[in-house]
């Protein structure tokens, strides 16, 4: 029926998603550290599977044309890639905002000078703790903490913007005030105090990592006090664990709405944890254009918007605020990625969150360190 055609075309155009704002490039899964909460998938990709330099450059070109504004070079440890400097230069040349997310144990003065010269805008350094012994135990890397401190000072001296990232859990959450003080002492413009997100390695180690409610409340109070004291000088971003939330986070600003993630081998995902979901045939930049993946691929469309939602989300007035929460968490805790995130108090599965929180009252079991081949 030809009469239908214009109407159909309109529907298709209306359904075309907004362009993505940010892209995370997981250049490699290689990393000298072994954090037990690493957000990488349990099945880590090997160096021989990684995309070559020209393929990453092509991905950057495509991303800029698609509307991406910010690119985050991440991993694993992105500095383990020898072509990081040319990739940063390429991205900066396209006018993209470039952010390096690094453990900083490889970030010495010559490396930093080369990155800064290539047009890097911002460096985010992850810290495992504020004291040497605690930090090096988490990363399972002796001497790492001292190297990070030295690198943070170099970043400041170079004038580049600096963020310190602290992933917090029951072994370091009591030291949130010291973390804020360290950010201040190092002259960071921003710090992130982010509780572990419990997927992948974090979920595997949840009983060893999840803080108690009382520990969390003390940390929250320290963050609020720090924000007030440092207003206008240092931004403090704060992420609580979903286990103590009543509303879920709007994970990635909604599935396939703002953000895309490219894995070392070139698979494209709506978030870095999505590889934990079964039943997806993730599209790859090796075979498909980024615009095609974003605008038309089935995996990006599957949980985009609100049409896929079950109750209670479907009729909830927060459905375009939190987009039903995190799909990876729904899958990890209910076995079905298409359910309401159990972090929501309205979810029929919400009780599993409280059970896990009770685990936090017991003594912590030992860590399972992140290693290629250690998830047994």
């Amino acid at each position, binding site marked *: 029926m030809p009469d239908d055609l214009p109407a159909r075309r309109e529907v298709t155009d209306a359904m075309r998603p907004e*362009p993505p*704002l*940010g892209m995370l490039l997981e250049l490699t899964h290689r990393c000298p550290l072994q954090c037990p909460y690493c957000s990488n998938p349990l099945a880590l990709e090997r160096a021989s599977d990684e995309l070559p330099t020209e393929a990453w450059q092509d991905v950057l070109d495509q991303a800029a*044309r*698609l*509307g991406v*504004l*910010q690119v985050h070079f991440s991993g694993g440890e992105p500095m383990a890639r020898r072509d990081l400097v040319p990739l940063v230069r390429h991205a900066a040349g396209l*006018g993209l*905002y470039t*952010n390096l997310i690094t453990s900083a144990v490889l970030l010495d003065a010559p490396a930093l000078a080369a990155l800064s010269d290539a047009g890097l*805008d*911002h460096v*985010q350094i992850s810290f495992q703790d504020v004291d040497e012994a605690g930090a090096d135990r988490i990363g399972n890397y002796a001497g790492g903490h001292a190297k990070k401190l030295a690198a943070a000072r170099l970043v400041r001296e170079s*004038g*580049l*913007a600096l*963020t310190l990232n602290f992933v917090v859990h029951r072994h370091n959450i009591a030291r949130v005030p010291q973390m804020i003080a360290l950010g201040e002492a190092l002259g960071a*413009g*921003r710090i*992130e105090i982010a509780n572990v997100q419990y997927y992948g390695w974090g979920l595997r180690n949840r009983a060893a990592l999840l803080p108690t409610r009382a520990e969390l409340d003390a940390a929250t109070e320290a963050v609020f006090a720090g924000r007030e004291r440092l*207003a*206008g000088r240092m*931004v403090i*971003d704060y992420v609580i664990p979903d286990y103590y939330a009543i509303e879920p986070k709007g994970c990635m600003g909604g599935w396939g709405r703002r953000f895309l993630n490219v894995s070392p081998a070139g698979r494209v995902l709506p978030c870095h944890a999505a590889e934990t979901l079964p039943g997806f045939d993730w599209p790859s930049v090796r075979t498909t254009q980024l615009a095609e993946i974003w605008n038309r691929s089935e995996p990006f469309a599957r949980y985009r918007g609100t049409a896929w939602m079950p109750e209670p989300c479907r009729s909830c007035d927060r459905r375009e605020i939190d987009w039903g929460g995190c799909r990876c968490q729904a899958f990890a805790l209910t076995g079905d990625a298409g359910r309401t995130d159990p972090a929501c108090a309205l979810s029929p599965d919400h009780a599993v969150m409280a059970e896990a929180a009770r685990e936090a009252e017991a003594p912590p079991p030992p860590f399972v360190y992140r290693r290629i081949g250690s998830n047994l």
Partner: protein
Amino acid sequence: MSDAADESVAPALRRGVKFRFDTVRDAWVLLGPERLFVPDETAVEVLRLVDGARTLGAIIDDLAARFGAPRDTIAADVTALLHDLAGKGAVTF
């Protein structure tokens, strides 16, 4: 910075903050670490004058002349806007 704004200071974008025109969205964007603002028309006019050299007073004069608005009104708006952006970590004085 006190409330009776010192107009001799020269606001600047903080290191690591970029203000540029995005041809895909056909809009000006202000980019920072994990931050993104799409400034409205007024903010765009102000931000285009923020270069670390021009003083707050000069920015106000320029806008007041161009928009033919009372200088006091412009001064209050511009100062409030720049303070807001400073609080968000995008601008320094």
